[in-house]
């Protein structure tokens, strides 16, 4: 399944979501930016990654390489001319597709946030878990982190994953957008001014003659 704004127009944007909890916190914001792009004459597509949202595949069976392949397949399926990848979703961006990486982060940092959420929750429950200890378990047999079942392969791949240095995508920093990233918030939120700015930056790049 995918969230799609498609009127068969020439500029066609593949949107790759942030990963895990950040995907939920940013989904509405990204959808709002896509709505603005639609009004600007840009078609856009936000596919569900295998194992996420309405995908029927089990999340714990997914690998980073599998997600990269899925991103390539989606780019071909929708005939994408550009890509907008968000946060750790930047790790999946097809390197040859021009576009943008919005507030990119490494796989290690994405995992660290999930590991820390679990260790803090464990501490509150009176059990002692450490980031290092959990990492050892996760590398061997996978682990559920903040409600996300991450397989051993995915965990190990993410620990090493950094954005492709040769990619065709420009980086959009949060400072370019203004305000605080929506992924920092405890609840999924929406900031119309940030959505305006993100859509404007992308539309300018896609519609210039």
């Amino acid at each position: 399944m995918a969230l799609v704004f498609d009127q068969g127009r020439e500029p066609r944007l593949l949107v790759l979501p942030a990963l895990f909890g950040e995907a939920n916190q940013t989904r509405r914001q990204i959808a709002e930016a896509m709505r603005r792009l639609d009004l600007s004459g840009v078609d856009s597509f936000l596919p569900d990654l295998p194992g996420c949202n309405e995908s029927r595949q089990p999340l714990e069976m997914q690998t980073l390489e599998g997600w990269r392949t899925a991103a390539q397949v989606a780019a071909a399926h929708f005939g994408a001319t550009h890509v907008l990848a968000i946060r750790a979703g930047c790790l999946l961006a097809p390197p040859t597709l021009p576009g943008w990486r919005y507030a990119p982060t490494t796989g290690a940092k994405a995992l660290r946030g999930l590991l820390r959420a679990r260790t803090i929750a464990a501490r509150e429950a009176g059990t002692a878990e450490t980031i290092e200890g959990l990492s050892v378990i996760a590398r061997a047999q996978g682990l559920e982190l903040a409600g996300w079942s991450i397989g051993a392969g995915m965990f190990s791949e993410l620990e090493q994953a950094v954005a492709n240095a040769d990619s065709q995508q420009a980086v959009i920093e949060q400072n370019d957008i203004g305000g605080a990233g929506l992924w920092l918030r405890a609840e999924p939120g929406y900031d119309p001014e940030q959505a305006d700015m993100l859509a404007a930056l992308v539309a300018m790049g896609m519609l210039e003659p």
Partner: protein
Amino acid sequence: MTIDPAKEPVIARESALAPSRSAVDALLREILRDVLVLDAELVGGFSGETGLFGHLPELDSMAVASLFTEMEDRLDIIIEDDDVDGEMLETYGGLLAFAEAKVVTAPAGGDNSI
């Protein structure tokens, strides 16, 4: 000490020099504002004795995780499991003292690349 949280100080990552105390203070307020979605004026008015964990309803365990992740990112430090105790999160002054100590001892030119 009053710091205008609207000004967004940036630590020069290229510099081998540790950021000044006031820069850490301003960055820490900015991080708290961003993570907890607090009013800039409210965070600007925090004193050393202002209570954090257990006093700010916004600061639950998930927010603590986000707070630490952002502190690591923006202050270029690593927060170890052993660092986390009640004292460091009890007051703003406690958290600031922790952050300052970490920034001073952090290896220069830490890897903040993406």
